[in-house]
């Protein structure tokens, strides 16, 4: 009988099987030149046990790291280490992927070669944050692994983990998409490189993620999965190629499928001409998505920044809140770099331990974050204005009345009076 009767069930079926991948590795790794045991074998036993017990058998990792880096490695040990020594250690290494997840076979092969020697031979292409994830190795392999990755022709570096700047990622953008409103790949690359220190040495209250999407379709899930989402947009009018619209008219029902589904109802179609009241367009992309040959984003392009996106742990999930309606996105991206740095400084000072920046903003108020980042409050910031009259007013907004004087006399400092930078 098979040693993995439960897992074997998952070799069946048309979708590619992770069990096959592990088995394949267990089989082929045996023959390779390597410095670790055939860990994939251990994985099979360990996971089969979990399938039987309906419980994980991995333990907390503690801190494992490579020289000069604080993050990038997730420590992991088996609680069945005695029975399954192959996976006594099973640390994961996060390797910073190239922008847009583009590779050449040459680069990929080199990584495979290293990982065959120094680890389990199992990977995730990619992790949810975007890293190339090398799944499982022993503590003593970490440093040589890193060093060998660094020595490659196109060297690869470690990604983020812990309370640090996490590995940013971006959509395919201008490399292969006609909708890209800015260069997501270059922005991602430059901002990653700019903040290597913050990425490699956890020093924040908690994790901080940036994701770059080229347009409001948000193919990289930035609005929900990053603290700072940079989403391409435009300011001027949607470009219309009328001839191409007419071609579409033969294919689809423009009125029903495009015009009627516009969320603001700002389009009209008389059977031959499509017009858009751009002042009321919210740049949702729907019409462009449906007729990519005929419509395109305008020429005045840049990005909208949303802040605070995150998963529900602990105070509930947040979809990024609009923070900067429009930012120009040209190298060297100083505006965005400065803003991020300022926000970090503020969050570092006021954020609680394990509090995402969205939660800090929720606690201290969006106005505070806008002030820190030097962004003016505009109606675009709100879905609707506040519904309670419990507003703060700072001293310099008050009339210098007798009452205010009485506060001064008593030596009580009103809000905004002291200590705060203007």
């Amino acid at each position, binding site marked *: 009988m098979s040693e993995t009767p439960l897992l074997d069930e998952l070799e069946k079926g048309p979708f590619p099987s992770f069990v096959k991948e592990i088995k394949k590795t267990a089989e082929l790794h045996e023959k390779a030149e390597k410095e670790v045991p055939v860990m994939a074998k251990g994985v099979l036993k360990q996971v089969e046990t979990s399938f039987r017990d309906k419980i994980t058998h991995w333990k907390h990792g503690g801190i494992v790291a490579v020289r000069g880096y604080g993050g990038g490695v997730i420590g992991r040990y088996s609680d069945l280490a005695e029975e399954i020594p192959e996976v006594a250690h099973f640390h994961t290494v996060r390797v910073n992927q190239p922008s847009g997840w583009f590779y050449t076979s040459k680069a990929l092969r080199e990584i495979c070669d290293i990982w065959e020697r120094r680890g389990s031979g199992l990977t995730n292409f990619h992790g949810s944050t975007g890293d190339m994830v090398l799944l499982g190795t022993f503590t003593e392999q970490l440093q040589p692994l890193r060093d060998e990755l660094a020595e490659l022709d196109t060297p690869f570096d470690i990604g983020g983990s812990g309370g640090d700047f996490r590995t940013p990622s971006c959509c395919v953008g201008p490399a292969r998409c006609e909708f890209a409103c800015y260069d997501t790949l270059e922005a991602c690359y430059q901002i990653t490189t700019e903040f290597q220190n913050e990425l490699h040495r956890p020093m924040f209250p908690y994790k901080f993620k940036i994701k770059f999407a080229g347009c409001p379709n948000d193919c990289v899930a930035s609005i929900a999965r990053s603290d700072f989402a940079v989403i391409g947009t435009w300011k001027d009018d949607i470009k219309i190629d009328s001839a191409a619209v007419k071609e579409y008219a033969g294919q689809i029902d423009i009125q029903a499928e495009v015009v009627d589904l516009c969320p603001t109802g700002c389009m009209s179609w008389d059977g031959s001409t499509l017009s858009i009241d751009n002042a009321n367009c919210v740049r949702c992309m729907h019409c462009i998505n449906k007729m990519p040959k005929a419509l395109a984003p305008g020429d005045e392009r840049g990005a909208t920044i949303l802040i605070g996106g995150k998963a529900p742990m602990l105070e509930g999930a947040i979809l990024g809140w609009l923070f900067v309606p429009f930012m120009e996105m040209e190298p060297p991206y100083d505006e965005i770099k400065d803003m991020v740095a300022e926000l970090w400084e503020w969050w570092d000072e006021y954020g609680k331990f394990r509090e995402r920046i969205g939660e800090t903003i929720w606690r201290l108020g969006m106005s505070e974050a806008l002030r820190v980042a030097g962004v003016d409050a505009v109606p675009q910031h709100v879905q609707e204005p506040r519904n309670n009259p419990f507003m703060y007013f700072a001293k310099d907004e*008050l009339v210098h009345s007798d009452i205010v004087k009485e506060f001064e006399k008593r030596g009580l400092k009103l809000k905004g009076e002291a200590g705060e930078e203007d």
Partner: protein
Amino acid sequence: MVDLDQRLNDWKEFIAKRKEKDYFSDFGPPHYANFLPPVIKKNYGKWKYHEILKCGVLKHVAENGDAIYSVRAASPRLLSIYTLREFCDLADKYCDGFLRFTSRNNVEFLITDESNIDPLINDLKAMGFPVGGTHDATAGKYALSNMVHTQGWVHCHTPAIDASGIVKAVMDELFEYFEEMKLPALCRLALACCANMCGAVHASDISIVGIHRTPPLVDDDGVRRMCELPTTVASCPNAAIKAKPKEKTVEVNVEKCMFCGNCYTMCPGMPLFDPENDGAAIMVGGKLSNARHLPTLSKVVVPWIPNEPPRWPGVVDVVKKILETWASEARKHERLIEWAERIGWEKFFEKTGLEFTQHLIDDYRVTPYQYTSYRATTQFRW
């Protein structure tokens, strides 16, 4: 439907029973059947439809064809018993003594003889009580009804603004909209003199609410004489109040205070009145009815306008500007919130010319609604 006479009898028996006790109390309000005109008693629950004969005059028709006419007159709500007696005179003259008040504090005269309508209206006008405030939903023509409002300087101890004075000034300015049905949809105005919002400010199309802007100035002596420290400390939603048990008083972290006034309600030793810094915030877009759009809360669109007695021109101007911008831009049947959401709040500020400031972004973390008022999409208008 119901046997009102039977119920009236039940009530009489109930009262008689209560009277047997040695202290006649807890007998409740008089049964309403005491006060219903015969045509209503007869057609109770059997009304079929209504029409608006003209602004301020409703005609309700029963299944059997009976009709009742209601003539609605404006009221300042604060009424003298002498005026009430005059209302009674008119009710006797035209309505067999029957009248009622509305949920927005107008007075309605209940007429069965149609020919009494115009004489009554004339008498009311002569008394200074103009008729109007109704709407014709079918035609999509709406008058502005009375403002729901509160006590202000006439009776309350916590107001940041007056009530009746501002209401009078606003209604004078908007009077044409009371007398004529020329608004595209229902538009309800309300005023509350402090954030307690006695009334409907938190859910009205346009409303005015009194706010303070300076923290309580602790009167140690007052605190000692009149306040319990634990309840005073607990009264602050922002945890801005700290007890000083030794001195038997409290101290306020003035930076944390957002001027709600709740501590003053609990403790007279914590006044937070400042003639120069108290004033009114303006809220819009609330709605109560379930017609079409869901009921919604009002939203602040102007953070502060100073107190300018006796006629508060600043407040009046803003209210009028909002009302008239909406009235001229909205579609038929489209209430303020429906219009604002259709055009977008960005355009609301553009069209009304109101300034958007950081105060309008919610930062009151205690209320959970804050979260949802932030925009969480790239969809917006420039």
